[in-house]
């Protein structure tokens, strides 16, 4: 091989790869609007993205799998913990992660910025990205969710547990908050009545309890969630 041939290898290699790449870039630009639901990309969502960048959240958390790997991926966080769950953690991380061995800083995010970021996460959750990350795939529910789905037929308490903020502090099989104890096997320790009593008035059962009383639950909801929890053995 002569130097001249080598030069032609260089030229052809570079040009052919660039052509493939630029053509695909052009087509991607065309398709992204649909794949990312660009029609729902409102000003609020954009404001949320700006806030997300302003506080450098991405240098602890990944989103779409990029960024730092120090904290949970936020691609599907809206699906995972919902609006209230997100708000609670951003507003008071010290409390939300009081029992965790890894802390999230209190960045003094304003309420408006938090609301915008929630809109941003709501939009990100819907991006059609070949179903990544696997742990949040709707096709492959996490173990915590499996436990709940398995119980939904038996008791609607599982849905109450997930949607009424219990998971901000408690976890099932590693999914959920860490401020309160994990409840994977709480049914071994506590009866239905005991759980009902505790949830309404934690300090009445244990004077040192740090859990706030759950006053918003209706009697029916309380009964269902207590039945669900007592079944976890």
């Amino acid at each position, binding site marked *: *091989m002569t130097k001249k041939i080598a030069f032609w*290898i260089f030229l052809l290699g570079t040009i052919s790869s660039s052509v493939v790449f630029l053509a695909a870039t052009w087509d*991607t*630009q065309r398709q992204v609007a649909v794949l990312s639901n660009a029609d729902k990309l409102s000003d609020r969502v954009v404001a949320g993205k700006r806030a997300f960048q302003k506080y*450098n959240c991405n240098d602890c958390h990944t*989103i779409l799998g990029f960024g730092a790997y120090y904290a949970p991926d936020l691609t599907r966080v809206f699906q995972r913990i919902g609006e209230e769950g997100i708000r609670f953690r951003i507003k008071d991380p010290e409390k939300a992660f009081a029992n965790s061995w890894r802390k999230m*800083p209190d960045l003094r995010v304003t309420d408006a910025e938090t609301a915008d970021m929630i809109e941003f996460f709501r939009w990100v959750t819907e991006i059609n990205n070949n179903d990544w990350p696997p742990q949040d795939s709707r096709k492959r529910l996490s173990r915590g969710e499996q436990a709940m789905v398995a119980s939904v037929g038996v008791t609607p308490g599982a849905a109450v547990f997930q949607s009424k903020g219990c998971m901000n502090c408690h976890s099932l099989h590693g999914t959920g908050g860490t401020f309160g104890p994990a409840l994977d096997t709480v049914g071994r320790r506590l009866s239905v009545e005991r759980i009902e009593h505790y949830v309404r008035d934690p300090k009445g059962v244990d004077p040192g309890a740090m859990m706030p009383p759950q006053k918003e639950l209706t009697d029916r909801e309380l009964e269902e969630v207590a039945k669900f929890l007592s079944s976890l053995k």
Partner: protein
Amino acid sequence: MEYRSQKIAYWYFAAALPLFALQILLGLYLAFSYTWTVPQSIVDAFSFATARAMHTNLLVLWMLLGFMGGTYYIVPEETKSEIYSEKLAWFQLIALLATGVAALVGFFFGWTQGRPLLEIPSPLDFVVVVGALIFLFNVAMTMIKANRWTAIQGTLLGGLVFLALLYLFGMPFYKNLVIDWYYWWWVIHLWVEGAWELVTAAIFAFILMKITGVERQVVEKWLYVEIGLFLFTGIAGTGHHYYWIGAPRYWLWIGGIFSALEPLPILLMLLDTMNHVKERKAKILNPLTWTYAVGCAIYHMIGAGVFGFLHTLPQINYYTHGSQVTVSHGHLAFFGAYALLNLMTFYYAMPKLKGIEVYDDSRGKYGFWVMSIAMMLMGLFFGVAGVLQSYVERAMGMGFMTAQSYMRLWMGAVFFVGLAFLGGLLTTVTDLLTIRPAKARV
């Protein structure tokens, strides 16, 4: 040293070294935060996020200083002329350092663009661009005036221009997160697997030619083949970052196929280096420089070629994407390809710039081996943590922090080998800054 203006390179290298040391201190803070609990009050004041922005930006800053210094060293010898303007070279060094310091202080006070690796805020970005333009102008003018083109010069200039152009894609605010990441990778991937490889290949070819005495015709012929393959695989290979961002599905094919070929040019570079070393026409004056050259070629292959290949296919990347597996590869590749390349350049050029023909490498040897071994272990520990994470969090679907508690031991191990790395690095930095002539051999 044959040309007076080469001297400027020394100051680029001398500025890069302490920044490298600072980068490692911050790396230790990161590994510490992974393993032990940092109290809330400290996290509020100086968080992981801030430290990570510093760790990675220092990395890029010192490496760019190294590349620029390397360029200022090589270009006079290649063009057989002085640098077009030494004043501009000085100005640009000071401007870049000042921007870097301003950025680091800014990060501490929360002044950031908030995009990983590209945290530098927009106003400072413009200063960076102006500095880069001055640099390119200075280098290009030197080459044009001398008009003695070689493949090494062409590759170097081409790589630098490509590098600067790509930076522009990282500057705008993108409303759509998908588009944002799409162009983010034009900077990050096309840098490390495109433009930087060109610059590296040129510097490597130059030093190899000088120390082995192999003919230019042979070195430059292989240089063309290497950069051709780098760009052929690397440009479309960008697709290996587009699997899960909301881009069309065909990227799984484009990215998978082209990036799977990316180890080829690296392998070629390794074989080529081995060949030149075997068929050397000059005798080995400074064994440590040779050790760095061979070490760099091998480590480049391991970190980028092997560890990159391991997670580049979509079937595997689905589980390892954005985990400690990525970090493992990131460290081994950056260290093997670019840290060792820069250190090789420093060991080649700094003694010469001080008028030392044969230098004393008794300390430097330790530096090389301690750093190389510590980094290899660190890569493996990150890797074990990453495999655990992929399995526990992604395959089993347990919570993020549950997976982290399984990985804790390995992240602690990273911290301790990180301390050893720091020891090796401090030895190297001291050695380079106070390099002495070798005592006459008996």
